[in-house]
């Protein structure tokens, strides 16, 4: 049996994860200062921030399955921070688009959101993330009670929208979005399987059924 970290150790782990999550931003700032973002720096910044928003969204979604498979219950205590970092990079991604790419050309931005499906779904994913970030505090969790977890199930909609946002943007080479889609499929698939098992549904549940029989 793996021992859970003490609260002091957990503080250290949290600090390390926090620092780790800031590395992509640090990298971007370093590249910007050293002029190594390439010929199209605005595109490079926007894409990198979007990449990290999506990656951290998937990491957040991975916490529960990993926790259940490994029995490392304390991992759940990193989930909020990871989720908030996903939101942090999503905010920066949106800001890069609004400020650097469009420079507040609101008419163009509005048209993009309404007319370009890949931007529509990306924007929708962002909008849906906002209430999750706002209700991430302990006080909010207490206030919302059971509704908190209901609300936070929105993540199961947000993550597919985010992958779709990437997929629809790509011209021909869908390798990268396909990889994210595959990871997401596993993360959601595991949950579906567990959910089905808990209700005694499906065919892939040798365990409980065998016992009952």
């Amino acid at each position, binding site marked *: 049996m793996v021992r859970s970290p003490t609260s002091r150790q957990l503080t250290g782990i949290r600090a390390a994860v926090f620092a780790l999550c800031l590395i992509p931003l640090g990298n971007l700032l370093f590249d910007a200062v050293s002029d190594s973002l390439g010929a199209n720096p605005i595109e490079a910044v926007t894409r990198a921030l979007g990449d990290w928003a999506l990656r951290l969204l998937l990491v957040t979604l991975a916490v529960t399955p990993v926790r259940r498979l490994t029995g490392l219950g304390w991992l759940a205590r990193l989930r909020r921070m990871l989720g908030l970092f996903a939101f942090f990079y999503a905010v920066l991604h949106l800001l890069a688009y609004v400020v650097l790419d469009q*420079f507040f050309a609101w008419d163009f931005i509005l048209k993009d959101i309404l007319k370009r499906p890949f931007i529509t779904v990306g924007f929708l994913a962002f909008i849906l993330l906002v209430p999750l970030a706002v209700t991430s505090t302990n006080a909010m969790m207490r206030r919302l009670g059971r509704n908190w977890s209901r609300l936070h199930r929105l993540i199961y909609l947000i993550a597919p929208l985010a992958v779709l946002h990437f997929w629809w943007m790509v011209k021909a080479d869908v390798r990268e979005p396909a990889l994210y889609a595959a990871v997401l499929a596993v993360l959601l698939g595991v949950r579906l399987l567990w959910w089905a098992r808990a209700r005694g549904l499906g065919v892939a549940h040798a365990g409980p059924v065998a016992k009952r029989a």
Partner: protein
Amino acid sequence: MWIKPPADIPPSEITPAEIYRGRRRFMVTAGALALASGLGQARAGTLLSSLRNPTYSVDEELTSRKDVTGYNNFYEFGTEKDDPARNAHTLRTRPWTLRVDGLVRRPGTWDIDRLLRLAPMEERIYRLRCVEGWSMVIPWQGYPLDVLIRAVEPLGSARYVAFTTLADAAQMPGVTRRVLDWPYREGLRLDEARHPLTLLTFGLYGELLPNQNGAPVRVVVPWKYGFKSAKSLVRISFTEREPPTSWGRAAPREYGFYSNVNPGVDHPRWSQARERRIGEFFKRPTLMFNGYAEQVAALYSGMDLRRFY
């Protein structure tokens, strides 16, 4: 003492010094090139001198050579913008031949050295507008494609010109993945191909084309989105029917045969109204036919450019 020039020579007859020097430079370079190619050493970086053609050059700030040669779409070498610069060194541009066939009186195979000597090199400073929404200004070296077209004498039945890019997985790592329908194919209507702006291109920034920019020979069609300007050509074919194109096959709704730069006709997934000039912060408005409307609009008179996008 001031010697008055004879009045019977109009100033327009006197060769300007720049052109005169340009001619000399061209002859010197032609000699150097002949020498270089004779030794089989003409490769990217070899000087390729030319005379600027001001009629077909824009007076805008050039995109840096670093960006022109480091930020490319050339999927045969990978789909990331820096892949071609990283991977294209494996392309062998010598020996190289270009097959010209189809509906012509004089089909045949052209060696790259023969092509290089077919006509004097001109420098053309063109805008390049990528369908993705970015643009550059590039000094190309080449001569009008029409020079070659005249040499092969198209038949009256020829209405289109089809271009084929090399597709050799041994030299082009991107070809092993079927991102597009290889070999890369593009096409123009014959009158578009014969337009004086359509350049058979061998160099940029005064040197033979770097591999990642489509060495050793490509076409540049400045009023169309960049993907219409096929690179590393191995075949030019004259046809009666509109030839299929690689991007047209990949996504017919997104990449039409004409693909003229048109700020009024959006790509189904993004706006084409503005573009980011590489090196600039603010987007600029995209110009009709990429700013070449005066020269090319007549090619499309009476055509619905929304339908023929």
